[in-house]
Structure formats: structure tokens, C-alpha cells
């Protein structure tokens, strides 16, 4: 029949929309539960705090190494490339500004979010998906423990806290990497390097804007990672597909949102 492709397209679109709706409902429940985590008192609050602490370790601290190493290299490459381009115009004194602006505005939050999706997001999905496949989540429900509170909300909160911190560390180390190549290796004047940077980088417009991106990316990447895990088909193939989807869709979401956030914040006369 000639209508067959349209039927398929319709079915596909409906499935997408339904999944988006599921993700939104999941997010709503997650936000309510995450909000309740620290607002309880007594032993329950301590327990929640400990759960978040454990996740901060596996999501944040273990991601630190890849962030530090890659930011140092990104900063050094920016220093080299920037120097080689700027020196043709006799403008190598602006190297510090170039490195700092590219890192604070764009590369810091975006590259951190991409690395975070690959390092921590995939691990979150695989862990939760495997818990589902081995029926640990169902087991918790049997014991009247809500897996959303016990397993998912702490991971989500830890992801939201970690990414902005990691982005700040990425940016700072990247600037130091650019400083190492520009000042120590290529001989740009140290004072000019920092003073041009301070004259051109605005705390609110550039640094805080980058941090805002970090917060938004942390929220989105953590959301996608825990949702894909919770929603995974409970088989080995299903968990593997969910992990792949986490990395692909959070990378796409980060890059798309980055464009939107940049367009929103740069529109000023």
C-alpha cells in the first residue's frame, strides 16, 4: 500500500513522543524525590547525605582524572594554535584573552559535559540498567524501599553537583595549560598575558555564563543517564543499547543546548 511509509512514520513519531512523555514524568518524580532527600530530618537525612556522598565519589572524583588531563591538553593546544595565528598579526599579547574566553564560555562546560557523559553518564546507565536486569530494583520494591529514592535520586543529585565543579576545574586547568605553552614555552610576557585576560573576561558575562551552562548540562546529562538506565530493556543487549543511547543523546543534547544558551546570552545590543 502507498500509505505504508506514512503509517511507519506515524508509529515512529508516536513512540518518540510517548518516550519523551515518559522521560518528563520520570523527571518530575525524580525532582520531587531529590528535593525531599535533604529536607528530611534525623537518620533519614544522614542516610541520604551518605548516599549522595558515595555517588559524588563515583561520579565526580573518579571523573576528575580524565578532566584534569584533557583540560591541560586542550589548554596547551589552544595556546599553541592561538599563538601561531595571533603572531601573524602581532597580537600574541591577546593570547591569554583568547585562551580564557574560549575556555570559560565554551570549551570548559561543553567538553566537560561530553567527557562526563562518556565517563560517568554511561556508567550510571549501565549500573542502573544492570540493577534492573538482575531484578535488584524489583527486589527493593518488594522490601518497600523505593528504588527511585534509594538508587536513582542520589545519582541524579550527584551528577547535578559534579558537572559544574568539574567544568570550573576544567577551565582553570585549561587556562594554566595555555599559560604554560604561551608564557613558559613561547615567551609571551607574563604580565600582559594575565592583564589582557582580566581586562577582557567579565565575571558575570563570561565566567558565570559558563557556570550556568555547566549547571544546565549537569542536569540534562544526569537526567538522560538515569532515565536510560531505569528505562532499559532488562537484557544484556538492552543495557548495552541503553548505554549507547545515553552517550549519543546526551552528547547531542549538550551541543544543541549549548547553541541555544549561547544564542540566548549573546543577544544583547
Amino acid at each position, binding site marked *: 500500500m502507498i500509505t505504508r511509509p506514512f503509517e511507519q512514520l506515524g508509529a515512529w513519531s508516536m513512540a518518540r513522543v510517548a518516550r519523551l512523555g515518559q522521560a518528563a514524568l520520570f523527571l518530575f518524580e525524580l525532582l520531587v524525590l531529590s528535593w525531599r532527600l535533604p529536607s528530611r530530618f534525623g537518620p533519614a537525612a544522614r542516610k541520604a547525605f551518605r548516599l549522595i556522598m558515595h555517588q*559524588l565519589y563515583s561520579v565526580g*572524583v573518579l571523573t576528575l582524572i580524565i578532566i584534569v588531563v584533557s583540560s591541560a591538553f586542550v589548554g596547551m593546544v589552544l595556546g599553541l594554535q592561538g599563538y601561531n595565528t595571533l603572531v601573524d598579526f602581532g597580537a600574541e599579547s591577546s593570547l591569554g584573552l583568547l585562551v580564557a574566553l574560549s575556555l570559560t564560555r565554551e570549551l570548559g562546560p561543553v567538553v566537560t559535559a561530553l567527557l562526563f557523559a562518556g565517563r560517568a553518564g554511561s556508567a550510571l546507565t549501565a549500573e542502573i540498567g544492570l540493577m534492573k536486569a538482575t531484578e535488584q530494583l524489583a527486589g527493593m520494591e518488594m522490601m518497600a524501599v523505593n528504588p527511585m529514592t534509594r538508587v536513582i535520586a542520589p545519582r541524579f543529585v550527584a551528577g547535578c553537583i559534579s558537572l559544574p565543579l568539574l567544568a570550573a576545574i576544567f*577551565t582553570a586547568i585549561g*587556562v594554566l595549560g595555555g599559560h604554560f605553552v604561551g608564557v613558559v614555552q613561547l615567551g609571551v610576557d607574563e604580565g600582559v598575558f594575565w592583564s589582557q*585576560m*582580566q*581586562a577582557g573576561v567579565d*565575571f558575570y558575562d563570561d565566567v558565570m555564563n559558563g557556570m550556568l551552562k555547566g549547571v544546565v548540562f549537569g542536569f540534562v546529562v544526569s537526567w538522560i543517564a538515569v532515565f536510560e538506565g531505569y528505562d532499559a530493556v532488562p537484557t544484556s543487549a538492552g543495557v548495552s543499547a541503553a548505554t549507547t543511547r545515553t552517550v549519543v543523546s546526551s552528547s547531542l543534547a549538550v551541543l544543541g543546548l549549548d547553541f541555544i544558551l549561547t544564542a540566548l546570552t549573546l543577544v544583547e545590543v
Partner: protein
Amino acid sequence: MNSKALELWVGIFVAAGVAALAMLAFKVGNLSTVEVQDAYTIKGRFDNIGGLKVKAPVTMAGVRIGRVADISFDNSRYQAVVSMSIDGRYQKIPNDTSASILTSGLLGEQYVGLEVGGAEEFLKNGDSLQLTQSALVLEKMIGQFLYSQASKDK
């Protein structure tokens, strides 16, 4: 891993993040440079402000003493009105001071340079500068230069 070591690592991680943000604020950003304090506003009317932007520096003798707070257009006199916030530490600016729009370097950003006058009275909040000089528009200068060359050749 026992929970003491784990807490230690998380503590180090959070502290490193906050330290990085502090470094970005004070070493990379401009939070350490003192902002304009207890500012008072003066105005200047210019025939042409060129590429002057809000937040551009206002300098006197090359030292930054304030920034451009607002730029608007006066439809009755067809002039640009530039409001400048001047740091409250610098109260004694004579009221016949002149302002000109200058460019830092050949292609740098534009800023307002104040040239001190000789009057006994000082500028107060809301006062207007009487003497102003417009921005130099490079295209106009090149045009004039070409005209003068052409007339010389005849």
C-alpha cells in the same frame, strides 16, 4: 574503600571545584579589579559617538575613573547623549572639562577621554559637559585625505 577516605576524596573534589571557581573569578575574570564605587553621573552630548559601547572606560590622564553607563539619542538636537558613571573618589573635576571619544591603538576599542579644564566649580551629579569632541571616523578621514590629494594634483 572505607568511608573516611571516601569522604576525604569528596571533600578534596568539592574544595578543588570551589578553588577553581575562585581562580576564575579573581585571576582570570575581573572581579578583583575594583569596580566604580559611589558613582555619580555626568552627561555629554556628542555629534557622533562612532563605535562607543556601554561599559566602555572613561579615563582622565589615561587612568580609568569611570565607565559609560548609558547611551541614548536626543531626537530634538539629533545628538547622542552619553551618561558616564564617575567613581565617587574623584569629586573635583572642573565643570569646563571636555570629553572626546578616543580609540585605544589603531583598531582597539573606543573610550571616553576627559581633558581637564580650569574652572573653579566642580561637576556635580547630573551635570552635562559643554565641550565634546566626536569620534574620529576612519572612513571620513580617508575620504578627506583622498580629496586633498586629488586637489593637490591639479
